[in-house]
């Protein structure tokens, strides 16, 4: 009996250690997902947002202006809670012809006393319209820095492609303004564009 008990004990200990190893591995797997997930998405394009915005730069060329068609474009703004700015669209809604270039203004004001850097991340809804909405010139292409209580106009020039699917009559362009925390410490331009590229947003 005592022999069986000892045998059983060591057998149990082995199995327990093995299973504990599995638990530790799976805990590590959760953290390994952080880099692996981005890598996986870049390789396979699973997170299709990045694909779409790349298509956006290529496809959205159109020939001529389609005067016969009206599309409603709405503008929406969000400010991340840790960015002490007010950020609003001066035009909330406009009707446009596909193929024609328009310009609208947004306004941003720094409500704190310190200099703060932020960047706007655009997205288009419905997502099917994303490739057909092209921004010729946008404040979101660069990081924006506002000194304390400074106010600035932020212009956007855009065009809706004539190739926009016929069943889309209305689309919304939404901006989320984010704070760039380490903007002063890291090599800004490269660092930022790399980080944002990883996230799959233009």
């Amino acid at each position, binding site marked *: *009996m*005592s022999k*069986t008990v000892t045998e*059983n004990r060591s*057998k*149990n200990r082995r*199995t*327990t250690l093995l*299973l*504990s190893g*599995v*638990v*530790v591995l*799976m*805990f*590590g*797997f*959760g*953290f390994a*997902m*952080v880099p692996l*997930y*981005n890598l996986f998405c870049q390789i*396979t*394009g*699973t*997170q*299709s*947002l990045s*694909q779409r915005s790349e298509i956006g730069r290529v496809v959205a060329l159109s020939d001529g202006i389609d005067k016969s068609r009206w599309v409603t474009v709405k503008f929406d703004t969000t400010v*991340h*809670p*840790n*960015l002490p700015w007010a950020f609003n669209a001066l035009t909330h809604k406009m009707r446009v012809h596909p193929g024609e270039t328009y310009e609208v203004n947004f306004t941003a004001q720094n409500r704190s006393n310190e200099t703060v850097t932020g960047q706007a*991340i655009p997205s288009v809804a419905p*997502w099917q319209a994303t490739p057909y909405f092209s921004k010729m010139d946008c404040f979101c292409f660069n990081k924006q820095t506002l000194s304390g209580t400074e106010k600035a106009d932020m212009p956007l020039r855009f065009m809706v492609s004539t190739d926009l699917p016929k069943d889309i009559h209305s689309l919304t362009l939404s901006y*989320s303004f*984010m*704070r*760039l*925390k380490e903007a002063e410490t890291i090599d800004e331009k490269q660092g930022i564009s790399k*980080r*944002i590229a*990883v*996230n799959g*947003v233009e």
Partner: protein
Amino acid sequence: MSTTTLTHDEAHDHGAPKGWRRWLFSTNHKDIGTLYLLFALIMLFVGGASAMLIRMELFQPGIQLLDPDLYNNLVTNHALIMIFGAVMPAAAGLANWMIPMMIGAPDMALPRMNNLSFWILPAAATMLLLSFVVPFFPGGGTQINTGWTIYPPLSVQVGMSMDFLIFAIHLLGISSVLASINIIVTLLNMRAPGMKMLKMPMFCWTWLVTAFLLILVVPVLAGGVTMLLFDRHFGTSFFDAAGGGDPVLFQHLFWFFGHPEVYILLLPSIGVLSHVIPAFSRKPLFGYNSMVGAMIAVATIGMVVWAHHQYTIGMSLGAVTYFMIGTILISIPVGLMIFNFIATMWRGAMTFETPMLFAVGIVLMFTFGGLSGVMLAVVPADMQYHDSMFVVAHFHYVLMPGAVFGLFAGVFYWLPKWTGHMYDEKLGKLFFWTNVIGFNITFFPQHFLGLAGMPRRIVDYNVMFTEFNVISSVGAMVFGLSHLLLLYIVIKTIRGGKKAESRAWEGAKGLEWELDSPPAFHTWTVAPQIK
């Protein structure tokens, strides 16, 4: 060997220790099983109370009883308490009581760890309840208005109650991982001589698969909430887009745990069913080997289809197609299990005692929930149903019959074995009918609400949804109160009743029925020989 065992046995033959030490320091699988079951019963009422408040608020459109944040906090609590506090501990309680008795082992393989894995639970439950209480105090921050999925960025903005919740989840995770390791070691190493893997009772098989799922996915959730904690307090940006992270990553981590969790809740009940249905049909289980295979298939496929909870996050067409096909594939092995149960009943000499009533109820209603699950698995359809009350109706149809009714069936089936008394059959049947009718009145109308466009997790609703919500709330009161009857039956059975024989049900098969009812404090100190 047997002679030495006997000597050993005589030297240690003692009854149960007395007083609180019996429970706090217990290493006895039966006592720990009882503790688990009592804990689950208490949590069933705590979680049920929050559901009652939710349904009271939804009785009429507008905001009557609860602030929106408080409402959402109750939704969060209801889910977490029911899943981690009621269903999982109840299943673990059944496992602790039955597995050693079923495989002819004297106790669990790691009795001290068993004690630890139970006694972590009350601490975790306290943390969980504190997360609800803290916001009521000055400086306590906001309520947890995220739902049980605790998605960032909202969960990063919630006050300190979220930290209590994160630690509660850590503790609950540690508890269930320890319990799982114990169960796997017991099942692999402690079976009676002659009991091959493919001769194990089905309940043991279901728990083996469940325990493996638990140790594979719970650590990933622990990792996810740890990252959340770091994002909240240590300036990391795992899930913060402004710092280069990705909030969607949390959803992937969460559902990598969350979807297998569904099978963790379901499988032990399937195991109970595989004992109850043959016992009351007086036929052996149809297709034992195929059941084992189907179960492993469900668990395996279930591990790789998690993103069907996130169709609307904007994945590529290829990815959603994969997750859709994978999800629908699961219905094949699940269907096989259901057909096996029906084939077991086919031409059997069936009687309908309370456990069997619950078992038949599961076969009917779980299948119904499975069918609405196939609807939700289809991507274009899900874009409509996503986050609507239809989803709420679906997962309650899957989890109430699939998990909870299975546990009720198990409790009624084995209660005579545990207590030595038969429960009151009339009251048992009354409980079944009020429970099942209340359940259907509560959740069936929610399908219509969802299809008509009522979103879930919102305190108020459009007046056009009033009628079905009134029906649902009335049903919920019946359903909720019916559980008081369960409590009464259980207490009554513990205190007395008709003496149960060792084979309490005439058709019951298995080693546990060879023992007395109630069994001695230590059983199978001499391992039985399996032919």
